[in-house]
């Protein structure tokens, strides 16, 4: 056993956990950690330009790769800047380990320079957190942090380490195995419950698969595809579940929810057996609860017991890992195609009645066209990140996602400013893939400084701004529900996005026509540099369908307000 410093322990632990890349920003309390980072050869460190982006980048890396994302920040403001990143990852159950420097142990509680109660602040927005009290407990805490982040329902873990402990010397006895008295996730579902669920599926007349982000998190998409193929049961996806089934899968009715397709939302409203897999019944999906899936019995499979019956009561609750549960379900379930033929016919008619569509124009660029065209030009081997707003919903509706981990988006928290740093993290996870960030003229300005991070490290992410001179989604709500009083949403005064990206060392394009867009995107892909396409789109285009907040999910607004 070798006696080493706390900072060396961090590097050694990261090495043992297979960490290849860390995103971060140094500062006084993190100096020892950064000195060791400079000396070690295990992992690459990417200097971001704002701590929030460090956590979003680690989050994007985790979503794209399926591994644990890691970020370093310093104490005080370094840490508080990182909180939005933690909350974003927590909302979407993304495995992250955030290591923050803290003032020396002797100074804790004295209002020292750059001191903040970091674990007190992060507590409600992480799966677990630690304030390290001694060098002796550091190896165990680091091991537990990675284990907790990636096991069970994944999530961010925060480790706050005082500066004296990063300098202290101790024995590095990194545990081989985890022995935690109190934390034991349940992986294997209850066999009796699974059997009952299988029987219910076999006799249902209007069954519906409801696929959430948990399918992707548990890498169970292949099994879900197998299950859908064997049973022929129609499926809907949440925003976080997009890509579980390929866009052209014959069973898929597209996304459900506030901006879900007509067919998906009607399916939710008329199903007699909702089979929820790794989905948590977010209010953006359920709409008015008393009207949600009102004729349905509910099978809910989730690794987190507290998710089950939290919002809607599950008739067949199954706590466990989807991989275990689905293997058993696939084996046991038998669906007679005749049983569900009428149901599929009805849904198919719904789909034809109100397909996801928009009226295209050659005069003005339509955002939906830009998204569809991007997919045609960039091809299938692309990762899409988004910011938050109308562009995010259009991307969810119109981009043909064909695999899990293809869409990187902030679902639960809805964090504007997420897209660019998450795109950087995704590109680091899979450098060979084209990474495109759909963003808005509002969102991009929230972390635009990360163009520098991308340019410095040759991380060629392409940002497509669907520029409508508005905070578009808020404008849309103001149009429908506030009599067009566009309070603080008009962004007519705009920066020169091309000059901005050029100033950071990238390339920029303004696109006002279809030809300009096609040419610019092809050029951006060819150049392989950080790029920004300022795409001027129709200012008043709405995201439709739309379910007003609190309305029943079948009460969809299908037309724009004149």
């Amino acid at each position: 056993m070798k006696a080493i410093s706390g900072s060396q322990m961090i590097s050694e632990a990261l090495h043992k956990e297979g960490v290849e890349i860390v995103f971060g920003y140094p500062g006084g309390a993190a100096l020892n950690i950064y000195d060791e980072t400079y000396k070690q050869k295990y992992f690459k460190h990417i200097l971001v330009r704002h701590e929030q982006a460090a956590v979003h980048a680690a989050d994007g890396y985790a979503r794209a790769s399926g591994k644990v994302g890691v970020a370093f920040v310093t104490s005080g403001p370094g840490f508080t800047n990182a909180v939005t990143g933690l909350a974003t990852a927590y909302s979407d159950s993304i495995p992250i380990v955030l290591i923050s420097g803290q003032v020396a142990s002797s100074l804790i509680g004295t209002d020292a320079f750059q001191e903040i109660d970091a674990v007190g602040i992060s507590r409600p927005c992480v799966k677990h957190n630690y304030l390290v009290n001694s060098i002796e407990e550091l190896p165990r805490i680091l091991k537990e942090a990675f284990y907790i982040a990636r096991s069970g329902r994944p999530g961010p873990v925060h480790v706050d380490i005082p500066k004296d402990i990063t300098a202290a010397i101790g024995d590095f006895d990194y545990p081989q195995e985890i022995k935690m008295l109190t934390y034991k996730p349940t992986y294997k579902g209850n066999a009796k419950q699974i059997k009952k669920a299988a029987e219910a599926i076999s006799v249902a007349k209007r069954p519906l698969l409801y696929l959430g982000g948990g399918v992707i998190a548990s890498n169970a998409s292949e099994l879900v595809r197998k299950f859908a193929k064997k049973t022929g049961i129609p499926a809907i996806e949440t925003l976080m579940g997009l890509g579980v089934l390929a866009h052209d899968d014959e069973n898929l009715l597209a996304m459900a929810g506030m901006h879900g397709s007509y067919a998906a939302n009607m399916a939710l409203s008329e199903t007699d057996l909702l089979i929820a897999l790794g989905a948590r019944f977010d209010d953006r999906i359920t709409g008015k609860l008393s009207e949600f899936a009102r004729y349905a019995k509910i099978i809910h499979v989730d690794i987190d017991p507290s998710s089950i019956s939290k919002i809607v009561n599950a008739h067949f609750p199954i706590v466990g890992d989807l991989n275990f549960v689905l293997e058993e379900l696939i084996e046991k379930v038998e669906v007679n195609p005749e049983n569900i033929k009428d149901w599929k016919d009805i849904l198919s008619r719904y789909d034809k009645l109100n397909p996801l569509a928009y009226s295209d124009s050659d005069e003005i660029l339509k955002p939906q066209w830009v998204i569809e065209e991007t997919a045609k030009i960039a091809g299938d081997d692309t990762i899409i990140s988004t910011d938050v707003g109308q562009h995010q919903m259009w991307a969810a509706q119109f981009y043909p996602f064909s695999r899990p981990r293809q869409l990187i988006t902030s679902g639960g928290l809805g964090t504007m400013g997420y897209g660019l740093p998450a795109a950087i993290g995704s590109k680091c996870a899979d450098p060979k893939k084209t990474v495109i960030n759909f963003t808005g003229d509002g969102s991009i300005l929230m972390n635009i400084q990360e163009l520098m991070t991308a340019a410095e490290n040759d991380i060629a992410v392409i940002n497509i701004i669907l520029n409508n001179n508005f905070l578009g989604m808020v404008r849309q709500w103001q149009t429908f529900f506030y009599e067009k009083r566009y309070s603080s949403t008009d962004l007519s005064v705009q920066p020169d996005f091309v000059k901005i990206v050029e100033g950071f060392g990238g390339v920029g394009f303004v696109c006002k026509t279809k030809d300009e867009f096609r040419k610019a995107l092809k050029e951006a892909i060819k150049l392989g540099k950080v790029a920004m396409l300022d795409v001027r789109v129709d200012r008043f285009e709405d995201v439709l369908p739309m379910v007003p907040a609190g309305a029943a999910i079948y009460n969809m607004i299908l037309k724009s307000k004149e």
Partner: protein
Amino acid sequence: MRRVISVIVLNEHGVLSRISGLFAGRGYNIDTLTVAPIPETNLSRLSIVTVGDEKVLEQIVKQLHKLIPTYKVIETGEFVEKEMALVKIPLSENLGGLDAILKAYNGIVANTNENFIVVMVADDTIRVKNFLKAIKKYNPIDIVCGGSVLMDM
């Protein structure tokens, strides 16, 4: 609805604030909370009395289970529940009948000096409440109540 919950947790830094945060985060008040280490273990036991609707409390119990340091949550079944109270009464009051009241509630005189007498009771919550009503006539100048201590049967 009044609910009592016993939670057994690892005795570690910040665990109490994790638990109280679950209640605070949902806008629920904790009526009483007592906590002490369990002898010869690295665990602590919390006794929580709260009021709230069943659905939210069910969710709080699930969330308590979910906390990494939580070993066990006991929320159903029969509990022995005891509460204590200390009452400071000026010696200048007419203390006639105090002995009988103390006897009725298993109370004792905990301490006294030249100015005050401090009496103590430890009993069922409702009986402690009744004791506090009965003792009002002595014009107590301070009352300190401890939270409920619970043991499941």
